[in-house]
């Protein structure tokens, strides 16, 4: 299959349903970036409302330390930094819409005697504080926070033939932010993927 690429802009009148097309419009300016001096330690950066946020992870004597830094986009003024989490091999992910940050430690080795349950520490960028701490489960990717629930996508093992289209089954899981309890689960569309190499 030859490589193909196309893009465009479609405008639909919401009352009449009339469709107009035009060439794709690309953003004129690239989003602002954090200062280059932090480049080495930045794990995530993004713009939310009028602030630019960046999460930096630095090595400390206790392991790693994740810090949330922020700037006012218009003026470039740096606001006070907030420590997010300290631990070993920190993982940082942004939720869909980039309104929340999910930070956790990596899973400990099975041989580690002092294994403690790993939790996602969920930070809301709107207020800059923790909105919940929920258990981490391998295979679950953070989705979004809605109300007092956080939605995860859990990928399930696929079955069936390997010589046909392979679809990775996925389950939507809602977890209560306050208790970490699974509220409900629903299967959603799977993710088509290439079959593994023989």
């Amino acid at each position, binding site marked *: *299959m*030859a*490589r*193909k*690429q*196309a*893009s*465009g*802009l*479609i*405008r*639909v*009148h*919401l*009352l009449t*349903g*009339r*469709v107009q*097309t035009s060439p*794709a*419009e690309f953003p004129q300016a690239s989003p602002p970036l954090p200062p280059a001096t932090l480049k080495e330690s930045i794990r995530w950066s993004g713009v939310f409302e009028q602030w630019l946020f960046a999460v930096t992870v630095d090595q400390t004597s206790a392991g790693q330390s994740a810090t949330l830094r922020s700037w006012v986009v218009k003026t470039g003024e740096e606001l006070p930094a907030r420590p997010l989490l300290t631990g070993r091999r920190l993982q940082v992910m942004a939720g*869909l*819409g980039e*309104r929340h940050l999910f930070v956790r430690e990596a899973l400990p080795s099975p041989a580690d005697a002092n294994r403690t349950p790993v939790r996602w520490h969920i930070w809301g960028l709107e207020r800059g504080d923790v909105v919940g701490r929920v258990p981490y489960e391998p295979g679950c990717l953070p*989705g*979004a926070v*809605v*109300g007092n*629930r956080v*939605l995860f*996508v859990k990928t399930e093992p696929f079955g069936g033939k390997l010589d046909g*289209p*392979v679809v990775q*089954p*996925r389950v*939507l899981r*809602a977890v209560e932010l306050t208790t970490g309890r699974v*509220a*409900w*689960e*629903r*299967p*959603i*569309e*799977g*993710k*088509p*993927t*290439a*079959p*593994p*190499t*023989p």
Partner: protein
Amino acid sequence: MTRLRGVLVLPVLAFALATTPILRANVPLPSGLADPAGRTGFFTMVRGHVEAIDLTTGDTLWASDKAHRPLVVVADRLYALGKAGDTVHVVGLDLLARGDVVLKTDALPLPGWSALRDEPGQSFRWQARVVPDHLEIHWEARAGTPAGRRRRRNARRWPGSRRRA
């Protein structure tokens, strides 16, 4: 009665559209989105149809085979991409009438090789937003060699390079 309700709803919808410069209140969710109140989520399910799910209980409120990809919620309507055969439309679903189709556009002028459902090596991505009276869909379609086929082709080209111990 249905016609009367439509006559009453249209001015309300027009007012909502005219006073909403850009709707960013729809919360993006995995394979879907939530309404601005965060009570109902609209998801593409296993069969490729759209279901409205109560985000508190996880129960299905209604389902529609006419819609495949939720785009945006405006007032009491969900706008979604729908697929009929090889053509793609925008459909408007009435949230007060359990997802009845109240709007269906002509086929969108998309390339024949693009598909709503991502296949290996193929993607269709979009961003939808509402400007007064209009829904704007920025789309990008790509197709290429699926990763698995590429790996197998490379393995044939350089035998032994991918051999496992």
